[in-house]
């Protein structure tokens, strides 16, 4: 697949993904402001710092959407990367707190959690950022694509320079 096609596919993917992230952010913000919560299938929108999480998701979605036009531009890709980083920060911290919550036994229990309690910590429902988390990793494919093209440019420049210098000293 040529880079042009890759970027075209990327721009369509992040347009759709950006809209979903933006919508999730708006819902979290609205629920956070009204003080309500929502549980739907494996998704749960509740808990502490809901407004902040909503605001971050909203901005992340806006970053994705603002980067789809002329997606091959490095500045736009940087925006896509940072939009994904923002999702990674929320989801990463959620995973970190889930791991730490799963180990101790709780107020009335023993020192360590039971196997059942341990596994129950990781069961659904999940917050929206956690569900969006795997889909945001697509950005790594584009980082790699960009790295390869950067390397190609550098290599061609170096070869060019070596040849010129070599010619003089022959």
């Amino acid at each position, binding site marked *: 697949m040529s880079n042009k096609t890759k970027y075209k596919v990327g721009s369509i993917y992040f347009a759709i993904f950006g809209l979903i992230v933006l919508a999730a952010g708006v819902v979290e913000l609205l629920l956070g402001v009204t003080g309500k919560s929502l549980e739907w299938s494996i998704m749960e929108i509740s808990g502490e710092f809901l407004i902040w999480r909503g605001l971050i998701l909203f901005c992340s979605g806006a970053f994705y959407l603002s980067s789809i036009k002329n997606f091959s531009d490095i500045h736009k890709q940087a*925006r896509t*990367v940072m939009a994904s980083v923002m999702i990674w920060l929320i989801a990463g911290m959620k995973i970190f707190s889930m791991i730490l919550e799963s180990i101790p036994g709780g107020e009335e229990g023993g020192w360590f959690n039971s196997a059942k309690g341990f596994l129950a910590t990781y069961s659904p429902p999940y917050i929206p950022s956690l569900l969006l988390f795997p889909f945001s990793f697509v950005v790594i494919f584009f980082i790699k694509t960009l790295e390869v093209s950067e390397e190609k440019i550098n290599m061609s420049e170096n070869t060019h320079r070596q040849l010129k210098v070599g010619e003089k000293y022959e």
Partner: protein
Amino acid sequence: MKLTVDERWALIDKISKQTIKYGKYQYTLKDAIEEITVKPLTGIPIAIAVLYSFWSFFGAFAGFFTDGFLVKLFDNLWLPWIQKVFPNEGGWIYYIFVGDPAADNCFEAFGMLTSGLFVALGVVLPAIIAFYLFLILLEDSGYLPRLAVLTDTVLHKIGLHGFAVVPMILSLGCNVPAVVATRTLETKRQRFMMSTLLAIFIPCGAQLGIMLEVIPKYVGFVFLYLLVGFFIFGFILNKILPGKSPEILLDVPPYQKPSARNVGIKLWTRVKGFFTVAIPFVLLGVVLVNILYLSGVLDWMANLFEPVLTGWFGVPKETVGPLIAAFLRKDLAVAQLSVIEMSVYQLVTSVILVSLYFPCIATFVMLMKEGKEAGWKGVCQYLFGGILTLMVVVFLWGGLIHLIWIILGVA
């Protein structure tokens, strides 16, 4: 062979043409990311995400150790054991060191070896480690200078500049190194402003850790209220204090991966500093408050200050004890507040008062030391200027929160 000046320049040109290649700088993704993290439109949302993760990490890490293991260790093992083996139950030495013999948790026992040790090691230490670990990662990755660039415009409104964010964030860990960090500011005026504002308005990591235990739902509100106060009184100080605030140029380093060794060394140095500076004061604070309580001084002071505490601030007169303890350690004072019978709004007001009230003794000593850099005149300026600002802030900002509760009909 001797060359003329022109011949030498011609030779230089010839060599440079053969050896130097002029090209276009290859702009990388890293450069683009560095750029968007300092532009306000994109940088502020990113900063919010970073600070959110900072807070989440702080809560999860400290909660894991404190609620997961240390509460159990202190309440189920340490407290019953020390209550059993310590001699002379009911005597005044027992009361000072172990506290209430009927207490079933370390928060309520209030002895030096029970509440004192629990607050210092069980609550504050995990919070401090979590705070410094994340802060060091931000410093070493190169994000902190970018945050300084982002906050530059806002901080200019109160006569400071972007790098003032460093002592601000540091003081969220401990006010003592934060006061030292104000040395990075250019003028005496800026240093005085920053150290006074942070000593009054910014709660330290230890206090934040305890606040998360005592009023978890209201920490955000308390924090916001203090932050608004920081900027309002900063703005006023900027208008009334003589002197200028010069412009500076910030050097922003590239992003880099933090080295595990550097992170480890920095973390150890800072945590060691906490052990030597803070822990003795926590233990001393418990002893002092217990002595004042046993000798009846606390009751006398509570009656003396009752009109101000209940009338102006709307808190019970018993808060006088924690306010005295706050001079030694603010985290200890918040822990003491949690066992006084009062409404949640009174508790929030009391926590705000503890934050605004006199800085802890370690910070106070450091403020005097900073003032001394400019001689005894500087000490007097820091002492009287600081206390005057503090008195005004406590009465106005502390009274305002009571007024807010009255308007909302909850006071």
